[in-house]
């Protein structure tokens, strides 16, 4: 609660919270908000010349090149983006926590091996690795989520590793151990709680990265496959018409930007609140 109160007091974080709340509500209530089905090619969805309709009139965001209601597609696209953002990033943070914690706690050969593997993953450009994976597997919502999780855990693992190494050296851990606490108890009750701020901050910042990566993969045609709408593939489907129907590209584009920006702003504010020593850092 204290954290939430502090968040609301910062204008930028408040802006982020409001945008995220709107996107979240839009995703949950999409079927009730939208007047049209996202997949319906409406009879009056195209002009007499067969061009998509600009925003306004009966269609809030206009229609796309197949005569579908763009507002409905964006609403349902919010579901796709948020599901991937939460699932992919949740898995990434969980893997990162596990690897970083084990490597930092075990140290020795096992810890070294884990960290060398993490270094190895750092040598891959995230997008290209995701592209390679997505191209090899048949893309679907869950595959895309897993691909993103597989490339995004690395950063978290490195930070958790550094923090765990510092924690393990502290006296209270030694005290616990001398009282007879086992490894499992020390990790779960004494180290994990100290890592929670990091997990929360990266859990938030990571959603921004994930939403952007999903949009990029979908834009390249190897993310979520049409007709299932995602913000990225809405742009993918209409990119060649961006001069004649700019709303098809720039409305979803602005929404992707606003969403990623909001999660970044909230994450940054959370870092300030949860870890005062990091204030104003990268």
């Amino acid at each position, binding site marked *: 609660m204290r954290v939430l109160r502090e968040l609301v007091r910062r204008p930028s974080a408040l802006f982020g919270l409001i945008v995220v709340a709107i996107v979240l509500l839009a995703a949950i209530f999409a079927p009730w908000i939208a007047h049209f089905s996202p997949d319906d090619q409406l009879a009056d969805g195209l002009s007499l010349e067969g061009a998509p309709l600009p925003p306004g009139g009966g269609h809030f965001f206009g229609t796309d090149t197949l005569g579908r209601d763009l507002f409905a597609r964006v609403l349902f696209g919010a579901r796709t983006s948020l599901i991937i953002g939460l699932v992919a990033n949740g898995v990434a943070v969980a893997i990162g926590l596990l690897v970083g914690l084990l490597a930092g706690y075990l140290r020795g050969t096992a810890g070294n091996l884990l960290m060398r593997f993490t*270094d190895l993953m750092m*040598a891959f450009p995230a997008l*290209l690795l995701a592209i390679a994976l997505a191209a090899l597997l048949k893309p679907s919502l869950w595959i895309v989520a897993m691909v993103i999780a597989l490339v995004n855990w690395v950063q978290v693992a490195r930070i958790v590793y550094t923090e765990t190494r510092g924690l393990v050296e502290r006296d209270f851990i030694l005290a616990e151990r001398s009282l007879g606490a086992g490894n499992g108890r020390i990790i779960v009750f004494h180290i994990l709680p100290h890592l929670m701020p990091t997990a929360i901050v990266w859990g938030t910042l990571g959603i921004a990265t994930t939403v952007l990566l999903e949009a990029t993969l979908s834009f390249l045609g190897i993310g979520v496959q049409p007709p299932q709408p995602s913000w990225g593939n809405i742009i993918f489907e209409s990119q060649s018409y*961006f001069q004649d129907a700019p709303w098809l590209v720039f409305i979803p584009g602005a929404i992707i*930007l606003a969403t990623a920006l909001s999660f970044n702003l909230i994450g940054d504010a959370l870092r300030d609140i949860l870890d005062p020593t990091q204030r104003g850092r990268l």
Partner: protein
Amino acid sequence: MAAFLARRLVQAALILLGVAAITFLLLYCLPADPAVLIAGRSATPQMVAAIRHELGLDQPLVMQFLHYVGNLLHGDLGRSYTQKTEVLPLILARLPATLVLMAAGIVVEVALGLTFGIIAAVRRGGFVDRAIMMLSFVGVSSPQFVVALLLLYVFAATLGWFPMSGFGTARHVVLPAVTLGVLGAGWYARMVRSAMIEVLRQDYVRTAHAKGLSGGRVVLGHALPNALLPIIAMVGIDIGQFMSGVVVVEAVYGWPGIGQLAWQAIQQVDVPIIMGVTLVSALAIVLGNLLADFVAPFVDPRIRSQ
């Protein structure tokens, strides 16, 4: 010092071996069977088996991996499924265009990032600082393909200042380079800012002020060189960001580099090309990290004396 650099060299070699192992596993252990992909849809099982034998896919995994690494060391990245040629020449032919784009992108990134980062650090906590930090957040939150399309819409389609796509003159480079640089500039500005804030706190900076140097001399002459070190150390991560960005930017602008090659390969599921570009990018990142290690002692005498 020499021992440190030697150790880094060995580490880099090991990382490259690991990179090769991962791409190998991706290539050969995932559902997509290369023999089926090469043979095409109308192939008989016999044809697939023949191709599998020809590629050595019927051999034990370890043998296949050794063979694969051996080939890589000879510069053999395999053959493209669709273009029926070696992958390496395809990549090499397109590398110069990508290097031009990256160089221009880095100029944009460093120019914007340094300028804004320094200004933000000097005006720390003030309105200018907050505005710049907000702007940098917008930069890192922007989907690159939307920025690319927006720049095209405004500056090429509407104003007609720059060509829509293609390659050749300096005017062709501007929009792709700006697209590529803006995202990085956001990170850069934040990094420069935090490094500069750290340095500006130091006693020697106060001494420089006290002996009457102008603010500009202190910031640029005394503080900036020391702030550059952590930024140089980021060059490997930076190259990684760039290699990822290159795919999107080249796809949108029709820039004939390796990013476009990868993008075309994606459409045709031409896995060897995708893997080849990934490998070359990983090599670039590892070399970038090595470069940072080797340059650091020249920038910072403290490292040299260790």
